[in-house]
């Protein structure tokens, strides 16, 4: 067949069209990728510490008019139980009445607390038992945040009866694991089995507890597992349970689970169990943050070349970055990269400016958040680092504002807060230490978000903390520090080892919470500000729950509704998503929300 001009032109046109279709998408994406400015600049909520809802916390009578509050007997000055209770009250918008002993607990008789939280270390036995019994008889929920020693319990039959303990099987029982039953914390049924070889490095729970057998009518939410498989499930050592007394419940926690933020979810679970439903505000933000990533200079080159056969920059660009994107897509989590031009300022290598713009362009393309990292070598102060970084960053990305920053020690912030480069910073990411609040204002305009997981490891405690915090706040913050990849602390800090662990942990353990919002640090900062500024009131009239938002309402607020064998029939002023059985995530779009519930099981045949 002869190739005529006509055929030639036709074929060429077709090829050109195909070529255009292939490259046009990329070309347009690049052309329209306005990465010179931070895309979140326009969506920052104008809420500061001044707008935070103030919750009354007092050690004497609470002012009249506060309908719902909890009382705490213990030491609020300590950094464990007391601090956790205070923080939980802030998040639950719940007033707190504190006292150091049962006999000093003072409240107006007609307006008793919803719940009394007892630190057993501050009980005076046996005198306090009758008072506690009296509270229970008044319908006040009682929570023993920890239990007195086994010997003390053994001597007090009254206390055993109050707690629903029928007998003490062993003073100190070694457990092989812990089992959490469905419904208490979000995330479903979970077993922490330390005998499983796969969990060898994960087991860090306290597995030595007294073994109490419970009486009829009690309900256990968390139990210890034994090596002796002949023991009936109902006789397994209970770790968290409740005992119905009069018209209320007495909860008991056998272990140290209430010493940190892990207690949040437990308290919410108890509140839910005590009522026919519970509704509470949540943050609804889950962030996956890579600190010290990407690396813009060829640091520690000798090690990098010896280990990976390539420089740090190449390693981050060709290996780590694609893995991060793959993980983000697989887990549906938004990532935030807190970059640093250099980690070691004693090194003579210089960061590459082209990499910076290239990365920021990619962040923009993949909707990843961008921030700065305050990490550096020990010889360089934070101010020196910021000064050097400013020169580099302003040179290559002069218009770009950074809203988030990673600091090993948030206290350093005060020293650099006035730096020009950091004027735009609104939130500080920090590793979880248990010493400060999970979510708070560091300064008037800067929030602090603590990471609750490191990503590379996920121990039993980490998982329990994750479930608890997710149950209570619908919040998680995975703060993955990438510095060890360039400056390893041990032989284990190698990407081929850390990468599978990171992917497995995130994809597996966050899966039950996939309904919660996926945010980068700037978005989660917005939601934290809204959450802290929020206040609410709610009541139930037959099948209808009325929810009113009374604090600063910025247009959206999130709540979790937990029911018992009821489901949402209709809702106004909000939208909702089912999280799991009897649990819903609601997004309030108006200040007044009405929820109508209906029983899940409706009779098919009627008379």
């Amino acid at each position, binding site marked *: 067949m002869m190739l005529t001009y006509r055929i030639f032109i036709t074929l060429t046109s077709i090829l050109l069209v195909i070529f255009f279709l292939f490259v046009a998408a990329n070309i347009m994406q690049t052309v329209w990728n306005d990465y010179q400015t931070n895309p979140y600049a326009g969506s920052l909520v104008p809420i500061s510490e001044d707008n935070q809802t103030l919750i009354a916390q007092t050690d004497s009578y609470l002012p009249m008019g506060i309908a719902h509050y909890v009382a705490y007997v213990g030491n609020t000055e300590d950094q464990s139980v007391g601090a956790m209770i205070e923080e939980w009250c802030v998040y639950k918008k719940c007033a707190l009445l504190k006292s150091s002993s049962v006999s000093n607990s003072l409240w107006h008789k007609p307006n008793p607390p919803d719940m009394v939280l007892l630190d057993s270390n501050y009980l005076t036995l046996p005198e306090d038992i009758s008072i506690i019994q009296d509270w229970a008889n008044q319908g006040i929920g009682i929570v023993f945040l920890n239990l007195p020693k086994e010997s003390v319990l053994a001597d007090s039959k009254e206390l055993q009866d109050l707690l629903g303990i029928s007998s003490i099987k062993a003073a100190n029982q070694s457990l092989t694991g812990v*089992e959490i*039953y*469905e*419904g208490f914390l979000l995330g479903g*049924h979970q077993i922490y089995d330390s005998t499983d070889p796969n969990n060898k490095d994960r087991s860090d729970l306290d597995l030595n507890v007294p073994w109490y057998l*419970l*009486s*009829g*009518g*009690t*309900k*256990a939410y968390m*139990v210890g597992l034994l090596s002796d498989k002949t023991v009936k*499930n*109902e006789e*397994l050592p209970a770790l968290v349970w409740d005992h*119905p007394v009069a*018209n209320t419940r007495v909860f008991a926690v056998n272990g140290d689970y209430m010493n940190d933020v892990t207690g949040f979810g437990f308290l919410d679970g108890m509140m839910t*169990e005590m009522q*026919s439903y519970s509704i509470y505000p949540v943050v609804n933000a889950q962030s996956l943050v890579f600190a010290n990533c990407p690396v813009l200079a060829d640091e520690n080159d000798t090690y990098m070349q010896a280990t990976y056969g390539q420089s740090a920059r190449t390693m981050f660009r060709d290996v780590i970055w694609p893995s991060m994107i793959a993980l983000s897509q697989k887990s549906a989590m938004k990532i935030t990269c807190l970059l640093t031009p250099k980690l070691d300022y004693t090194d003579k290598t210089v960061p590459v400016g082209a990499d910076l713009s290239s990365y920021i362009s990619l962040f923009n393309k993949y909707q990843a958040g961008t921030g700065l990292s305050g990490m550096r070598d020990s010889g360089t102060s934070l101010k020196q680092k910021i000064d050097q970084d400013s020169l580099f960053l302003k040179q290559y990305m002069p218009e770009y504002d950074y809203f988030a920053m990673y600091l090993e020690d948030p206290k350093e912030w005060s020293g650099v807060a006035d730096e020009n480069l950091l004027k735009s910073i609104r939130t500080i990411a920090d590793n979880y230490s248990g010493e400060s609040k999970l979510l708070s204002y560091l300064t008037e305009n800067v929030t602090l978000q603590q990471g609750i997981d490191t990503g590379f490891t996920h121990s039993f405690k980490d998982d329990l903390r994750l479930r608890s915090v997710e149950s209570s706040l619908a919040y998680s913050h995975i703060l993955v520090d990438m510095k060890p990849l360039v400056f390893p602390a041990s032989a284990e800090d190698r990407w081929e080892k850390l990468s599978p662990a990171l992917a497995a942990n995130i994809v597996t353990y966050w899966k039950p919470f996939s309904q919660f919002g996926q945010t980068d640090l700037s978005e989660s900062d917005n939601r934290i500000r809204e959450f802290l500024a929020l206040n609410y009131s709610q009541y139930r009239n037959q099948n209808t729950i009325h929810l009113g938002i009374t604090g600063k309402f910025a247009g959206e607020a999130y709540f979790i509704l937990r029911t*018992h*064998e009821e489901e949402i029939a209709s809702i106004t002023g909000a939208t909702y998503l089912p999280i799991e059985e009897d649990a819903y995530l609601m997004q309030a779009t108006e200040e007044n929300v009405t929820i109508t519930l209906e029983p899940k*099981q409706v*009779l*098919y*045949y*009627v*008379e």
Partner: protein
Amino acid sequence: MSMKLLIMRQFAEVFGAYAVLVLLLPCLVFYRNVRKESLETRLMVYMAIGNCYMMAVVFIMGLFYLALSKLHIPVLGTGVIENTARWDVINRRILWIVLIASLLLTKFRLKRVKRSYIVQVTREYTIKIVKGTVGIKSFFLMVGFWAKKQVWFAGIHTVKLIRKNIIDAVLFLGLVFLLLLVYGRGMFQVYGYTASDMLVHTNWVNDLSQNHIFSGGVYPFGFHCIVYYLHTVFHLDTFVVFRVFSFVQTLFIHLSLLLFLKNFCKSRYLPYGAMALYIGGKFFYFYTYSRFYSTLPQEFGMIFILPAVYFLIGYFRIRKQELARVGKPEEELARVSSPEKEKKEGDRGEGKETEQAGKSPSDFVQKWRSSYRNSQSLWYMVWFALSVSLTLSAHFYDTIIAALFCIAVVVSYGLRFVRLAYLKRLLLGGGLGILLALLPMLIAFALGTPLQGSLAWGMKVAGGSIETGSTDLPGSKEAPSGKKKGAGAKTPDATAPPKTELEKVEHALLALPQKIGAKTADLLNKPMQSLTVQNIEFAVQTYVFPSAPKVVLNLILYAVPFLLLEGLVFFLLKKRDEAALLASAGIFLIFMLLLQAAKLLGLPPLLDANRCRIYLSYMLPVFACFALDGILILIFGRFKRKWILPLCSLPFVLLVTLFLVRPGELRETYTSSAEETNTAIVCLSNILKQETKGTWTIVSAFDEARLAQDYGYHYELMTFLQEMESPSQRKSITIPTPKVYFFIEKIPLAYDYSLAYAGAGSKVSQSVAQKPMPNSVAALDFTSYIGESRLILMSKMYYWAKKFSAIRPNEMQVYLETDEFICYVVEQNTDRLLDFSIDYGYND
């Protein structure tokens, strides 16, 4: 969905299934063979064959499993629901395959289709389907077309039949409507069981589902086989079948009566009038029909009493015609029936050898075959045998009544009976019928299954050593020992030393002549003045017509001489068959009256007077129709125009209708006492609908253990309370299913009227809950749930539930509540079960 709609659906399903099995399928197979018979006869034949088939198949399967279990070959797990369900599927498939194979093989056999032709067609279609020449869809389409054609044909035939007999059709529908009005409404008023015995029977059928036949001991199991068959083949819940089958069997009982009357009455519409009076007449004592509201074997067996009698009378009549045609006795008839064969044999000149060969078994079969193919009377004897076996398979009482009527017939046909040409077949038929019914029981007994307790009880009643008629309770004392002891229990003879069953029977047989001697002596020594008409009148009045005018009683008593007199008149008019029929009715009426008044007359009561009245009243339309029909025949039978006689019977129907439509004359639906509250049945129906098999438990008093055995678990209420009774002995109570339902009667049912007590019918109360727990013999003990014990248990349970739902409101919620009943549901974590044992304030 409304429960009433559900009940209607369930009834339609059960009725449809039963009607298909006992009417439609036998009709499809045997229609050509019985097409010369009247419609009434055909229907009776179908019923006999259909029921016999179902019983036979289940008996064979059950005995096979029984034999396997005796050989220690397990055929079912230990009552595990999953295993039962699996075996249900297996048995369903077996029964379907056997059904289809039986239908096809019998059809082919009757149509004399050659075996080679069947093989050829099967092969041809298999190859076509395998090769793909004919697709599966096409094959089923072809079958569908064939079925459509058949249905169309049947439809046209039915329409023609109705057009031809329009008055009959209208009157028949009227009777059905009347039955619906009187009996059908009962299903919608009381959802649950209406007789305590039904639980025992349900239990036995449930045991059949677990491949355990005769689980309560050897007992007439025919009725249970039918229920099991319906349950398994059509996937109908056993307890649903039991709930609605009462009306199905009532329809068939009355259908049998109508067919019987229609067969004999020449006054065409007379049976409808008599039936309407029997169904709708308010003057009957309600205990004469109250058991029709319950699904019970005795009433089921009533379906076959009159067909048995009909086939016997038919046999006498047809045999006479056959013999008249030939003019020779039976052997010669057989020879005449197959002249070709005889000729052939003669032609061959085999002479003596043939005579010798005639004695061989194969020749006997040949001879019998040629004989039965041509002898209609032999078929009647076969159907008679089937009907007798059905009565005996269902209940002994039905056989007694059928036997009495048959004796009356035999006496009436006295001269024919003594002739060998009649007697041989008659004895063979009767014997075969009894053997057919007894065979499964004998096999089971031989395999080591003990006798069921109520057999001994029945014998004692017959012997007069037990009085069961002290209370006029509907459905009382069907099998008291079975009820009291629960499943598989037997009544030990208090006087007898512990022996094996075989020894016991031997012992009883040895003692029998002595007992009979003693009874006879007693009877002879009794003053004869007790045998008076007044006593009979009193018995009939007391048991059947307590509030009827004297004239009704007189009519019944005068019916005896009247029927006999009529018989004599017909005899003199040389109408021997009519005369025998009337005489047999008269004699049978005498038997029934004597039986009803046996106790008063000092005669040995063959059956309980309370039960006897059901049969007596059931037979009254027969006596009435025969007597009136006789009169009408005598008056109008001589007219040449055949329509005059039927027409003369119409005014009677109109009179009856006018009588019944008068306000207050029509019988009202009897509201029988329920064994479960309606709400309990609503709850149970919902649970079965909404829950997965094996994931729930019902804590209740006894009943639901039987109703939902194959679907969920049951926890005895008595055991539940006992285990948390005293603090020192308190055990933890855990129930290992995700959902636990608590059935509590706020107004406890009056389970046994004989145990009336001061607080009967009152609500549960704190004062009653404070009373000590009733003493129980054992778990699943029926006696714990009667009288005041039930009120105490329900009161304690009620306050336990209140307490537990107060302390665990999220876990325990009200499922359904009415004024009389409350059902709670507990949803629990099966990894850590709730301990239900609490101090609820009324523990002892």
